[in-house]
């Protein structure tokens, strides 16, 4: 059996290599900072013949996702990537992909949204697409980006729901980290070829998602909502089977660190959650029983797993890299509070917004913030 290969690579390269490993058929693409290198790398691999796939350069993100919808509807395995305002430009077609039940997998490299312009990471872009019917993962390392893309194709194709994989611009997208590439035969065993139950086929013409009367429409919407909720065990199974085959584990719906005996729990997503593990160590050295709970899934929000994992009487410090306009604080805190309400009255939730537009979040800064929040 071939051994895994370890290389040094960036988050965007990891995403491109995952698309190659997943043997995707079609990649429509349009560049936007900080995602650009994913599209460039894939276009290069297709051009050199390293990937047996069709790369479609189009004129903007709305068309990127429209091409992805069409390619997915004929039964292709489809991957693409975007960032920030590119994701917002796709908004209408995000609904078409999920309502059309097309298992597209897309990376969104998190970047603050216009206006004013910014190039750097925050989570307003992906969180603002919460209600589009896409499953959303948030990743905190290059390796997790690679692993999650493969898991996402398994999940998406099993339940016919598109999946968005989010990771921070620059902190992940442009930073070199060691990346373990499992042997291709192991990946092929984990992710067999895509066999859709229905596809557009000129030999047997059909069309999809035409006008429906109210009762039919309501039925299909209910089905989408139910299936998104029912995806949690499918996500867990994919993570477990990926671990069984490759030995790698990033958590399933959630990831935890020093949580079991924690009195103070940091709650955050993406690269800041990786840095927070170091903040937890600092706080522990200072005699504070701190731990981390990182939701790897943002949608569906892993309510039961969070309720199970939080220690008794925990003080949860939600560190939001986004604004929940019209409310004080951020979106993650609102989600968490809605889950805990009536279920965990012993838990208190505190919230601060930080790191907007890429402001650096160091382990010391976040350790200081958490200590200060204890007195909020």
């Amino acid at each position, binding site marked *: 059996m071939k051994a895994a290969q370890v290389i040094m690579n960036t988050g965007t390269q990891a995403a491109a290599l995952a698309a190659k490993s997943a043997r995707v058929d079609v990649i429509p693409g349009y560049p936007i900072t900080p995602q650009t290198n994913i599209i460039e790398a894939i276009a290069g691999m297709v051009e050199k013949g390293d990937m047996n796939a069709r790369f479609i350069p189009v004129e903007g993100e709305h068309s990127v996702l429209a091409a992805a919808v069409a390619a997915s509807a004929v039964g292709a395995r489809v991957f693409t990537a975007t960032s920030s305002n590119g994701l917002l430009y796709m908004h209408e077609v995000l609904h078409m992909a999920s309502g059309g039940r097309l298992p597209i997998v897309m990376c969104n490299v998190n970047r603050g949204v216009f206006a004013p312009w910014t190039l750097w990471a925050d989570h307003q872009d992906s969180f603002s697409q919460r209600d589009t019917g896409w499953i959303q993962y948030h990743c905190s390392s290059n390796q997790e980006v690679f692993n999650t893309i493969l898991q996402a194709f398994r999940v998406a194709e099993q339940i016919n729901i598109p999946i968005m994989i989010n990771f921070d611009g620059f902190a992940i997208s442009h930073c070199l980290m060691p990346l373990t590439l499992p042997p291709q035969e192991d990946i092929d065993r984990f992710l067999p070829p895509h066999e859709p139950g229905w596809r557009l086929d000129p030999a047997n*013409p059909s069309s*999809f998602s035409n006008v429906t009367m109210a009762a039919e429409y309501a039925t299909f919407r209910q089905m989408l909502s139910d299936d998104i909720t029912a995806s949690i065990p499918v996500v867990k199974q994919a993570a477990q089977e990926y671990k069984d085959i490759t030995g790698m584990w990033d958590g399933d719906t959630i990831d935890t660190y020093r949580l079991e005996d924690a009195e103070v729990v940091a709650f955050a997503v993406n690269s800041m959650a990786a840095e927070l593990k170091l903040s937890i160590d600092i706080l522990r050295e200072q005699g504070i029983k701190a731990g981390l709970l990182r939701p790897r899934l943002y949608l569906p929000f892993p309510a039961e797993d969070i309720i199970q994992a939080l220690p008794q009487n925990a003080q949860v410090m939600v560190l939001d890299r986004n604004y929940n306009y019209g409310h004080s604080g951020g979106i993650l805190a609102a989600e968490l509070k809605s889950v805990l309400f009536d279920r965990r009255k012993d838990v208190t939730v505190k919230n601060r917004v930080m790191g907007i537009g890429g402001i650096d979040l160091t382990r010391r800064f976040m350790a200081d913030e958490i200590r200060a929040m204890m007195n909020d």
Partner: protein
Amino acid sequence: MKSLTKAYQPISWPTKGSGGDTGSWRTHRPVVDHQICNKCQFCWIYCPEAVIDRHEITIDYTYCKGCGVCATECPSGAITMIKEEE
């Protein structure tokens, strides 16, 4: 891979009348004067609902919505729109 549910979304297979009894929508009916009609087939080309017989130039009133495109496009003026009885 095994699916959770069977039908995820409405799939339409092209069959005659799959859009329903659309003739009931009509307020005006196109009537062809076969004395004038020279069977140029313009009406057949332009009909958005494919309810005109290409060779006989007859109209299937079960599905014709009465949009009037055929009457507008007919270069000979052989098609007249006549108000449907109340």
